[in-house]
């Protein structure tokens, strides 16, 4: 009965996602944290599945990270966003897809603000013209990149080389899905499934054969929170948030975590190392942590892309236990070899968290 209730709520929070004609804007930080994710989003959706997604080298940050850190006022972020819209118009596209959750929230917030205060939109149009001699049209659709992967999840499943199933036992892998706060907590109707039951990631997990874990702190923030992390004195708050989530999910023995935000996979991954160093506690089995993936990385593994091409050696928590369960072949000898077999050096090993 409860499941039917959730399905009913999901049906009320669906949004139109065109298959083609998308203008892609990257995140300012994801390429540092998870260097192959954006490349493989384009690789999978554009090259493998054949959908029309365009990006230009001229786009910049959306200003969201500075806006949420109180470094710039919203009007500045609006003018930056207006320039991105102008680039989209010049390229002949009408739908905007963002790589970053905070960008998605920022674009949505700005469009909603302009809807409430049209005089502000007029002022931003004047400022953009004064600064760049550009004009813009507002996008017809704004989506997050995970919305598109959600839409294409069954196409990916049809081409799957591996599934989210333990190849040794046939058991569906237990996956924790973590949604970035700026996806639908600010504007629930803009996310698939709303703020309480977003199914953008759980839909992928179920299509790819896994089992979604429902645990008490499922909707709790990862702890990034901008000011919490960027001010060193506040980082204990960030760490404690992540700790609270791991303590809550631990009894369900998750095999992996999937996220759709730039900050969440970074903090859920790196804080496991800090928690292990400070308390000696690890959350995976046999001293390992729980591997954390972006949705592009997990889609790449499903499609049979080499784990080291996906950049999984950059993760703090070892991914090998999950690769073994899924039956994904990998060569430990090439883990730290980059492009053209260039040695990218081995990181130091933690004292408490087991890594390779």
């Amino acid at each position: 009965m409860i499941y039917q209730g959730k399905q009913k709520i999901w049906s009320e929070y669906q949004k139109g996602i065109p298959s083609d004609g998308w203008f892609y804007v990257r995140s300012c930080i994801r390429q540092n944290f998870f260097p192959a994710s954006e490349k493989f989003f384009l690789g999978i959706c554009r090259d493998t599945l054949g959908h029309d997604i365009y990006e230009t080298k001229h786009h910049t940050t959306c200003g969201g990270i500075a806006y949420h850190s109180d470094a710039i006022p919203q009007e500045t972020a609006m003018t930056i966003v207006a320039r991105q819209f102008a680039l989209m118009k010049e390229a002949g596209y009408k739908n905007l897809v963002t790589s970053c959750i905070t960008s998605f929230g920022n674009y949505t917030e700005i469009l909603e603000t302009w809807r409430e205060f049209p005089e502000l939109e007029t002022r931003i149009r004047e400022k953009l013209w004064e600064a760049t001699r550009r004009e813009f049209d507002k996008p017809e659709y704004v989506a997050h990149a995970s919305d598109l992967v959600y839409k294409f999840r069954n196409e990916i499943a049809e081409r799957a080389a591996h599934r989210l199933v333990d190849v040794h036992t046939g058991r569906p892998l237990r996956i924790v899905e973590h949604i970035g706060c700026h996806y639908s907590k600010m504007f629930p109707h803009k996310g698939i499934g709303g703020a309480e039951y977003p199914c953008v990631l759980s839909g992928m997990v179920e299509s790819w054969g896994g089992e979604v874990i429902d645990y008490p702190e499922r909707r709790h923030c990862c702890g990034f929170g901008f000011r919490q992390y960027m001010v060193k004195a506040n980082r204990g708050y960030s760490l404690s948030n992540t700790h609270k989530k791991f303590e809550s999910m631990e009894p369900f023995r998750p095999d992996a975590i999937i996220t759709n935000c730039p900050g969440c996979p970074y903090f859920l991954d790196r804080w496991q190392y800090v928690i292990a160093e400070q308390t000696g506690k690890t959350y995976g089995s046999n001293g390992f942590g729980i591997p954390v993936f972006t949705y592009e990385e997990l889609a790449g593994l499903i499609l049979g892309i080499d784990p080291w091409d996906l950049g999984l050696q950059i993760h703090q928590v070892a991914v090998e236990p999950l690769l073994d369960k899924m039956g994904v072949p990998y060569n430990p000898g090439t883990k730290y070899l980059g492009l053209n077999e260039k040695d990218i050096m081995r990181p130091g090993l933690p004292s408490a968290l087991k890594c390779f």
Partner: protein
Amino acid sequence: MIDFGFGLARSSAVELDKVDLSLYKELERLEPGIRKCIACGSCSATCTAGPWSGMSVRKLILNLQRGKDVSGMLSACMLCGKCSIVCPRGINTRQLILSLCRIYDNK
């Protein structure tokens, strides 16, 4: 251990399945009226000792329900009884505090 310059904050979560509620249960036996408390805070608002001592009957009852020690707070009470006069549920809070003092004395 590595000093990162920051650390885990102590959790303020109360796990009611694990706390010792024997003190509250004993007080409830002696003063069943405690069950009527709606935590409105009228008692704390009118408390003469509250502003300078931290005494708060509302907080005292809440802490008892969470299995915490409240002996430090009890010593600040002057037994003036104003809290009993203002209680909208008619709880004899003055008597409640006296009974709690007796439970502590008998320990």
